[in-house]
């Protein structure tokens, strides 16, 4: 079974899905990411789906689950690079992707995570 590599950039984990994953691969990614968040004490997870041609209920559920798991572990998940056709299809399918934040691309996703940290520390020092 093919596995998706998880990259580490400071306290952010980055995953870029480049292949058409079968369901077992989707579940493996979900588990690997949860383990990696704990192991690296990550503050953020970015899932890049630029190359993903469809998001069905199975992948959609994985994205929501990863977001929930990371929130419990004090990390934030951001999905980046969703294609417009995928977004349109998701809405019609009825998937809400509850709790999943999105950004246009990887750069904006990283910026979003960093700005959140900035806001947090600002609030604390005040």
């Amino acid at each position, binding site marked *: 079974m093919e596995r998706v590599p998880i990259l580490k950039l400071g306290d952010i984990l980055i995953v870029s899905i480049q292949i*058409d*994953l*079968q*369901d*077992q691969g989707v579940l493996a990614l979900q588990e690997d990411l949860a383990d990696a968040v704990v192991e690296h004490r990550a503050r953020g997870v970015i899932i890049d789906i630029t190359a993903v*041609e*469809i*998001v*069905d*209920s*199975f992948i*959609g*559920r994985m994205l929501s689950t990863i977001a929930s798991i990371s929130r419990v572990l004090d990390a934030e998940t951001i999905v980046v690079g969703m*294609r*417009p*056709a*995928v977004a*349109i*299809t998701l809405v*019609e*399918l*009825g*998937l809400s992707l509850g709790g999943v934040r999105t950004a246009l691309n990887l750069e904006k996703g990283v910026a979003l995570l960093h700005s959140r940290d900035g806001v947090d520390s600002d609030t604390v020092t005040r």
Partner: protein
Amino acid sequence: MTDTFEVPIDSDSDVVVVRQHVRSHALQAKLSLVDQTKVVTAASELARNTLVYGGGGRLVIEAISNGVRRGLRLSFIDEGPGIGDVEQALTDGWSTGGGLGLGLSGSRRLMDEFDLESAPGRGTRVTVVKWVR
């Protein structure tokens, strides 16, 4: 005039193969990018149902024409346990498998035509059509 193609659905990896074949047929049928995405997404949902609930089966892909328009017809066929209450199965959020219950109802929204034939003990056949705009 029809042109038929068949794909077995017996494993997780067959669901990926279904997506690939449906994508290339949707492209060949000259569906728009959004419609291609909708058709492949619906096919992924229905193939997974055939595998998980139907115990495996097959997909028949047909390039069809009604004289005015061309389209793509997909039939997902299994000889599994069937569905007792079809109305209930088509309700958003209804699932006997711990899923989101969006596969059938969502696929119906994504396609132009949707037909579900099923009887307990006699398997299930879901037929969907997308017409080229």
